[in-house]
């Protein structure tokens, strides 16, 4: 088919931050599907909780302290996370490297405390359905956490190599910030469901 050029796009930039980048939209897509998974798991938990009048099924209440510490760590981590985002937008290598190291450490810290969360549930997954559901919820979020921390560490290493000096990499840092927000956000309802809902019953 014959062609007639009507548009010159040679001046367009080669990368864009946030919603200008396809990767940001892909990340959003994965958040949507993972969020749906979380919502359904939480829904299943609530479904069982409303079905059985004596929910918690005579199990002891969980010790909320490890979970509360994780919550505090995650909420606090949002501050450096967003400072990092500002530097990523400006493509400032020095502060971004520092920020990525800080975020890797702030990802590992809740994982360490998470180790103590499982015994603090005061029940095993195979004791009854209540135990199963809170292990499943905690397990789901832990998988989430491990995946994102792994991703953050790899990206941190990458930013210390010559590959880091690229608009795309700074865009990746921005998307990593975005995803961490999601990891923190999904934890709040799960925290309430695991540690505070059983105290209502």
């Amino acid at each position, binding site marked *: *088919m*014959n*062609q*007639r*050029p*009507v*548009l*010159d*796009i*040679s*001046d*367009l*930039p*080669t*990368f*864009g931050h946030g919603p*200008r*980048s*396809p990767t940001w*939209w*892909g990340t959003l*897509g*994965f958040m*949507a*599907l*993972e969020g*749906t*998974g979380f919502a*359904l798991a939480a829904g*299943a938990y609530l*479904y*069982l909780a409303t*079905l*059985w009048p004596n*929910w918690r*099924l005579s199990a002891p209440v969980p010790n909320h302290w490890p979970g509360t510490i994780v919550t505090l760590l995650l909420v606090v981590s949002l501050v450096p996370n967003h400072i990092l985002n500002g530097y990523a937008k*400006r*493509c*400032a*290598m*020095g502060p971004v490297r520092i920020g990525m190291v800080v975020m890797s450490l702030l990802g590992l810290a809740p994982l360490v405390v998470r180790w103590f969360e499982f015994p603090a549930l005061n029940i095993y*997954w*195979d*004791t*009854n*359905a*209540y*135990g*199963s*559901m809170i292990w*499943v919820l905690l397990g789901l979020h832990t998988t989430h956490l491990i995946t994102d921390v*792994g991703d953050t560490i*790899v990206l941190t290493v*990458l930013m210390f190599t010559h*590959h880091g*000096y*690229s*608009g*795309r990499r*700074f865009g990746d840092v921005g998307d990593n910030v975005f995803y961490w927000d999601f990891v923190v956000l999904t934890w709040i309802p799960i925290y309430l469901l695991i540690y505070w809902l059983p105290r209502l019953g």
Partner: protein
Amino acid sequence: MSSADLTNERDLPPGRETSATGDIAPERDGPRDTGMDDASLHRWLARTWRTPPGIIGALSSVDHKVIARRYLITAFLFLCLGGLNAVAMRVQLSGPQRGLIGPDLYNQLFTMHGVTMMFLFAVPIVQATGIYLVPLMVGTRNIAFPRLNAFGYWVYVSGGLFAWVSFALSMGPDVGWFAYVPLSGPEFGPGKRADVWAQMITYTEVSSLAVAVATIVTVLKQRAPGMSLDKIPLYVWALLVTSFVVVFAMPAVMITSTFLILDRLVGTHIFNPAEGGDALLFQHLFWFFGHPEVYIIFLPATGMVSSIIPAFARRPAFGHLGLVLSLIAVGFLSFGLWVHHMFATGLPKLGASFFTASSMLIAIPNGVQIFCWLATLWEGRPVIRTPLLFVFGFFFTFVIGGLTGVMLASVPLDLQVHDTYFVVAHFHYVLIGGSVFPLLGAAYFWFPKITGRMMSERLGRWHFWLAMIGFNAAFFPMHIVGLWGMPRRVYTYPAELGWGNINLFISAGAVLFFVSFVLFAFNLVHGALRGTPAGDNPWDAGTLEWATSSPPPSYNFARIPVVTNVEPLWAEREALPVAAGLRVDARELIVSTVAEAHPDVREKSATPSIWPLLAAIAVGATFLYSIFTPWAIIWGAAPIAVTLVGWFWPKGDPEDEE
């Protein structure tokens, strides 16, 4: 819209500086396509976008057309296998008390038939069609996240192999395609058969979700300049809505199958009522996916119909906006119907009434679509060719399936015919009528684009009539035998019930239907080898996939089209307006804004890589191992992490670095 609007500075998003600031290595600018002659442009682009030669090269391909072709062929092979399951069952049921197949094998056969048709054929083939066509129709050079797309294919293949090798080893799932607990649970489902079901689901859903995300981003961010939301082709709208439905529905079945395998493998009690769980929870979770699943299969088919009808009616679709809104409405409503699969479980009456109402409600947007298509045909000058014949077959069959659907939406009737052949007849009318017939029409319609050759029209007509007669002969009498009380999923029946003759008739129809597919397969092969050359646009259709050669080159378009109309090729018959300024030595494509499709970024698309295959092998092996021990997840994590790092680590190409 004129091209001037597209370059108007006012309309561009803020912050569009061309010179990047900050700690970024300067772009190593390469040759651009501006003013380049056609021969040099082709040489450059062909070298930049080619799939490397050799076996490793072929396994590394990230070209959406190559991946889609593999998907289509694989899904067609699974269709054949699932069809053979069905023929085996029909031979067994052709007379009372036949001893050909025993109950154990029969259970595996109907489960494998359902699982194969739903998870290994229907969803993959509609997604594969989208992988091939969506990037072409929106005027871009590759799908978004091409490596993720390749990964999706490999995971799908390994899931299909896993299920069928298990079946060959007599450990195929035997608990029905929806695998209800407690039958599939630890107490009543010994051995590994139910685990095979659960993990096969996980494989195929990972693959569907990956493709859905890639499709959504392609449609939202990679549309050709000027293709604002109101100029997106209906087929692309259908795939977009479908992909959103996948994103919100598929996690439900992954959660279901994961909960099931946890109950079976590590002793959780999620579905165990004796320890505070609940068996009905399984059904809720499964059908929260299972009902949208029907629309995941059906909506792309409506998109195909909306492409075929304008091409043969010789006019744009009547009620474009109405058709788009219907697609979106069906997408939303599909999430509000799942409980109508559970009317026989003794739910509260009010709940059942709500789901009856919503089940009837969804007939409204579907009806709107049907009337828009009829109006398009009425107002046009229809040219009756094989693709349009299959669309007529779709109307006839799908409307019957829709009517029995409205019948089944009422609780008393549903209770009466629950788990009988009436239901089997209904869902085959809906699925084959609603999806397979449009797919067959689409095969004839787009085959010339994919292969560059035409399929035989004469064989096509034979195929259509054989399929139509065979299908109706096989499935219409099932309504009757269902009303007589014949339950589904029985491996035989006694002679005294008098169901022998009608079942023999059904089996004869099924064989005829199968023969029609043999003819189709012959027509495919014959067309690919000996068909008459098709040219770029054999049907004189109006959407962008027909603007390029058949088959399209690896880079799809020598220059990215600029879209001015919903049927761009009809609006611009003299010469296609195009954009210039992309680099030709790196895989550049245009990223545009979501609503208006203003060109925004020159982004680079990923190069071929073997890592998606290696990652899929690591993931597949982990899933396989996990039916034996939960430690598989721990052992599998390391190879998965290594392959993912290999996948994402930059290799020094301009595509990685800039």
